[in-house]
């Protein structure tokens, strides 16, 4: 029986975090889009103002002398809904294939739900690819609503080029 435990990520975890970010991106067929580096993860997550937080899931090796292995993670941060206030935003959530079905995902979600309650958030939000049926079902089973469906919200983006264009005054 595989023993696992959840804990808060530490600076030393950035290489595992990046590895799992890439594995999840690969699962979403977007692996080449990950340009983030361990250095950025370190500065952005463990500096004066953390821009994200992570929970790590570790399993103990077969021998007690083995290093525990990081097999899952959730990356989240706090957002603000102008109608109801603080929200917990679940950005990435992934458990390695060989460790699924053990309850790690449920335990992570339970931990995040507790955290959301403790920090007086009124909801947890996240985005799912519409063709990711297993994940859509995982969330719907736990009461998640598809706001894109029900309320017709569409996610938009200005990329760096557009931002630079908008920030620079037009040539006279």
């Amino acid at each position, binding site marked *: 029986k595989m023993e696992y435990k959840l804990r808060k990520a530490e600076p030393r975890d950035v290489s595992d975090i990046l590895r799992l970010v890439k594995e999840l991106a690969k699962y979403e067929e977007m692996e080449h889009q990950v340009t983030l580096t361990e250095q950025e993860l370190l500065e952005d997550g463990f500096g004066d103002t953390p*821009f994200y937080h992570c929970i790590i899931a570790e399993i103990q090796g077969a021998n007690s002398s083995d290093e525990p292995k990081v097999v899952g993670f959730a990356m989240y941060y706090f957002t603000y809904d102008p109608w109801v206030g*603080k929200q917990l935003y679940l950005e990435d959530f992934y458990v390695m294939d060989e460790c699924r079905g053990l309850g790690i995902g449920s335990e992570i979600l339970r931990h995040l739900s507790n955290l959301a309650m403790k920090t007086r958030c009124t909801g947890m939000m*996240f985005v799912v690819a519409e063709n990711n049926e297993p994940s859509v079902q995982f969330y719907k089973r736990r009461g998640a609503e598809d706001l894109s469906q029900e309320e017709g919200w569409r996610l*938009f983006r200005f990329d760096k080029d557009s931002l630079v264009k908008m920030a620079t005054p037009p040539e006279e």
Partner: protein
Amino acid sequence: MASFILRTAEPKDVSDILRLIKELAKYEEMEDKVLLTEKDLLEDGFGDHPFYHCLVAEVPKGKSSEGNTVVGFAMYYFTYDPWIGKLLYLEDFFIMQEFRGLGIGSKILKVLSETAVKTRCSAMHFVVAENNTKSIEFYKRRGAADLSSEEGWRLFAIGKTNLLKMSAK
């Protein structure tokens, strides 16, 4: 001569911020969903750890038919994309009807873009209601891409009741 100014919101602005949040919610036909109070806005935006930032647009006293000087706002915060890092997330963006067409919206977007570039964000994200064609065009004219269309992302939410259910298990 500028007919309006933009500035960072201060604690004294929370009642105007709430008023404009309600006006925007009304425009989206969701007015009764605004449960936030001025006190929440004060604690959450001007405490030790701000959960949001605001820019406000002001006009000289006497210009607004309703006597307000704060006529527009943008509420934003920073998020994190695990593929590319820091993002600026534009949460609410609204100009009172009688002050549209004066370039206030464009100026706000310009200041937000400068903020994003200065804080080394890779992009600005925001959500638009799919039936809000006017806003969609405003953003598309400035280079915004509809990720829901292009990449098929759908926004989900788990509300308080279900969070409580999950945290109790």
